[in-house]
Structures are given as structure tokens and as C-alpha cells.
């Protein structure tokens, strides 16, 4: 089942295309990472999908509900956490949770129980009776997550959920997101690539309003693996690098020195043959090998590659 789907969703501000023809299908119980540089259209997309903004063209469905107008059924099925959640400073954290529950028409006893559970989950139980005006930015971020979960949403939208958090807070939020995918679909817009790598099942990369790539994280890694071998030696490896020059299944051999180590980098033209033959050639060279590695790009490399047009 698809939790979020869009067809030709576009948003123009005058002549500026903030979002251009977005076609997306996010399966249920997926953590979907929506990546892009600042100004790429991430927040615009989140606002369109949550009904805070109206599309110029196209349509979207979230949790089986058509997005648009004042669709209260949609709002009762989603949770939303903006990038900088703003609260009524005169309320306490517990009061805000209760207020959120009342807006979702939850019975009073259930609201109280759920609020207590969620405040505990985001470690705000003690601070729950303090005025929100006294909360740190991280505490507000955690309260933002808690209030978005009060109605056990089917789809949870999180706009830059970890941007204001310290490393410990970030880890806690990401662990929470991992746990939540058992019961909800999570659409997480972010520019922190390591967060996506850590918790997301699927990733979409957006640039200048256009969706450039949608894929599972593992497929993305496979697709963008550059087939480069790195072999580190104790001795001078330049003759070995030169000997690889004329092999048709390898290309661009180089020998570089890094931290006193001789490193040979070579790209495989035929991966299977390279995997079979390269260890034998290393053995025949008589050199002392200290490392042999097939370089797998991290998401940051892939992101930069895609943003810089490597995908097209």
C-alpha cells in the first residue's frame, strides 16, 4: 500500500518553480528521507503534503486522503513537526500535549495517558510541568516530536527533525524514528546525510525543485558504487601500478603516497574479472599488502554526485 503519492505536484511562486512536477510513491511503514540542499524545495513539499500550501498543479494523496482544502480527516491521520516548532510559551509541556490531544478529540483520560507516555519517550517527563518558555531549543524539538505523535499518526511529517539537536539528542531522535516505522510511515526532510543513511529505507533527492532520484538506500549505494579498488603497500608500488596499465579489464591505475603508505587506485572495467584476477596479480608482485578495499561511496558522495548532475 502507498502511504504518500503525488502526481505532477508543482508549486510556482511567480516565475520561480519551487517544486516542479513531483511524482512520488512512498510505501507504508517506510522511513522516507527527503534530501536536498537549502532552497531545493523540501519544505515546500512538506507544506504541500500537509495542506498548508496549495499546489499550482498536480495532486497528492496522504494516508488515503486527498490533500487539499480543509480535509480534517487527513489531519486526524497525520502528525506534523515543523523545522522550528513554535509553542505558546505560557503553556507547560504537559498542557500543550493535552491541548494537542483535545484538538484531536481524544478522550481526556487517553490524552493524559498518551501525553505521559510521549513525554517519557522524549525525556521531558520532569520538564513537563515547566513553562515551554523556559525550554531549550532541543527540548522544544523533542516536544515537537511528542505532540506530532499524540494521535498515533499513520503518516508523520518531520521537517529537519534533528537540525537543532546535539549529538546525543540526534541519536535519540533517530532511534525514536527507527522504532516508529513499525506503526507509521515517516517522511523526513533533511540535509543531514548521515541521518538518512542511519534510519531511512528510501531516499528521494531533490534539487532546484526537481526530484532527481528516488531509490532505496541500498540500491542507491549499488548504483553509485564506482568500482574502484584501493590497495595499500609497504613498499614502492609504482612498478605494480604501471603493470596494470595494459590490462583491458582495468583502467586508470594510479599510485599515490598518503601518510607514508603507497596506495594504488584502479577502476575496474570488468568487475567480475577484477575481483578474480587482482588478488592474484598482487600476490605475484611480491609486495607487502596492508589493505585491499573496494571503495563504496557514502551517501554524501552520492548526494554530491547527483546534485552535480552525475545522475543524468
Amino acid at each position, binding site marked *: 500500500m502507498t502511504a504518500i503519492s503525488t502526481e505532477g505536484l508543482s508549486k510556482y511562486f511567480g516565475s520561480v518553480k519551487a517544486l516542479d512536477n513531483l511524482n512520488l510513491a512512498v510505501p507504508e511503514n517506510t522511513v522516507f528521507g527527503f534530501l536536498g540542499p537549502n532552497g531545493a524545495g523540501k519544505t515546500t513539499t512538506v507544506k504541500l503534503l500537509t495542506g498548508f500550501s*496549495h499546489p499550482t498543479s498536480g495532486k497528492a494523496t496522504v494516508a488515503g486522503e486527498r490533500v487539499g482544502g480543509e480535509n*480534517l480527516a487527513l489531519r486526524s491521520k497525520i502528525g506534523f513537526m*515543523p523545522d*522550528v*516548532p*513554535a509553542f*505558546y510559551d505560557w503553556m507547560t509541556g504537559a498542557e500543550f500535549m493535552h491541548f494537542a490531544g*483535545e*484538538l*484531536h478529540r481524544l478522550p481526556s483520560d487517553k490524552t493524559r495517558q498518551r501525553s505521559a507516555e510521549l513525554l517519557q519517550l522524549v525525556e521531558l517527563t520532569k520538564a513537563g510541568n515547566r513553562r515551554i518558555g523556559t525550554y531549550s531549543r532541543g527540548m522544544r524539538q523533542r516536544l515537537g516530536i511528542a505532540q506530532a505523535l499524540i494521535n498515533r499518526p499513520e503518516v508523520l511529517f518531520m521537517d529537519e527533525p534533528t537540525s537543532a539537536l546535539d549529538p546525543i539528542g540526534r541519536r535519540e531522535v533517530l532511534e525514536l524514528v527507527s522504532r516508529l516505522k513499525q506503526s507509521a510511515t515517516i517522511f523526513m526532510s533533511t540535509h543531514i546525510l548521515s541521518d538518512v543513511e542511519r534510519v531511512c529505507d528510501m531516499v528521494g533527492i531533490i534539487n532546484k525543485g526537481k526530484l532527481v532520484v528516488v531509490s532505496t538506500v541500498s540500491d542507491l549505494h549499488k548504483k553509485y558504487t564506482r568500482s574502484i579498488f584501493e590497495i595499500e603497500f609497504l613498499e614502492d608500488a609504482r612498478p605494480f601500478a604501471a603493470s596494470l596499465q595494459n590490462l583491458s579489464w582495468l583502467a586508470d591505475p594510479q599510485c599515490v603516497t598518503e601518510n607514508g603508505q603507497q596506495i594504488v587506485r584502479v577502476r575496474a572495467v570488468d568487475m567480475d574479472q577484477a575481483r578474480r584476477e587482482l588478488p592474484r596479480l598482487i600476490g605475484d608482485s611480491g609486495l607487502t599488502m596492508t589493505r585491499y578495499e573496494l571503495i563504496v561511496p557514502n551517501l554524501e558522495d552520492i548526494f554530491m554526485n547527483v546534485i552535480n548532475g552525475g545522475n543524468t
Partner: protein
Amino acid sequence: MNGLLPLLKKELIEQLRTYRLLVVGGIFLFFGILTPLTLKFLPQIMKLSGEQIALDIPPPTAIQSLIEYAGTIGQVGVLVMVLVAMGTVANEIKHGTGLLTLSKPVTRAAFVFAKFLAMCATLLVSLMIASPVTYGYTVGLIGPASTAAFIGQNLLLAVFLLFCLAVTILFSALFKSSLAAGGISIGIIICLALVSTLPVIGGYLPGKLLTWGNNLLNGSGNSYWWALIVTVIIIGICLYLAQYVLKKKEI
């Protein structure tokens, strides 16, 4: 109007916690006490200053005191209501608090109407505190006055101030800046007050409610039922437009 009750509850608590009720009630009470006191003791104050002109001031009447009270609240109250309401929607959108509230299953109409009702409550409670005190001071210091006429005058004053409130809420929904909302609202209220002095058309406009209130105290002059009907209709239109604007607004 999904969510009206919890939103209204939140707005009412906000009126208390942010001291709006205290401030508005305090201002109304201050002018409520000041008016009869000033009228009563002005000749003595002038005499103490040594000015002979004090002897020429006619003795104050209860009607004069109550009309002056309504006049003062009709001016200061407008300013207070505009100041209280000018950021009510604009600031929620600007600061992002409205984003979390409106992400829940509540209608924009409930959001606007809850704010109007809560500010109505602040206004009415403030009037209910200040007016009896003014009446008491007036009767005690100056002389008797018709209670029924004074209640009628206060009700008309309240409707006029609710009109100012509704206009300000509309502009607060329209503009991103609360200052712009307040400025435009004051401008429109002043323009309407000026037009209210014109013959024929003036009799249909909210400004005439204050004249009608004074007429009630004097026991003479016209009633302006059409002004009352038009004012209530304008209040309704302003609130409808405010929620409509908010519905169409990109937040």
C-alpha cells in the same frame, strides 16, 4: 467548527496567563473611576490652583459623568481592543505557533471564532468590572441616574467595541505584520466614525451606537436600530472573511 471548544479554552486561559484581562480590565476601571472623580472634584482642584474660572464651572450631573465615561471608553477602548487583537492571527502565523495548532483537525473558522469569543469575554468582563464602579462612584459623588439607561448604553458600547475587535481580527488575518493590521484597523474605524457624522448614511453606521447610548441616558433623541443591525452584520462579515482569508492563506 471542529476544535472550537479546546481552542476557546486555550484562548481564555491565554487571556488570563498573558495578563490581557488584567490590563484591559485595569485600564477600563482606571478611566471608570477617574471620570466621576474628575467631574466632582474639578471645581475644588481649580479653586486650589487659585483660578477664578473654577467658580464658573456648573455643578456636574450624573448623566454628564456617565456620558463622559462612555466617551472615554469609546476612544481608549477602541485603542485597547485594536492593540489586543492586532497580532492575534498575524503573530500566530508569523511566529509559527498557528502551524502546530492548524496541523490538527480544526477548522480555520474555529481558530478565528475562538479568538473573537475569548476577546469578547475579556471586553465584557472588563466592562462589567468598570461600569458598575463608575455608576457607583457617579451615584455616590454626584447624584442618581437611570440604571436601565446606563445598562443600555453599556450594551451599545460593547457592540461598538466588538465591531472594532472584528475589524482588527480581519486585518490581522490579512496581514503578516500586526502593526500593519493595527494601523489599517484604526484608520478604518476613524473613517467610519467620521462618516457616521454625515446625515442619512451616518444613521446606518456603527459610530451612531455611541450617540444612541448617550440618547438613552439623556432620555431624548433618536434610536438607531439600523446602525445596530448593520454593525452586527459587519461583525459577521469580518469574521467570515477572516476565516476565509486564513483558509486561502499559505502558511
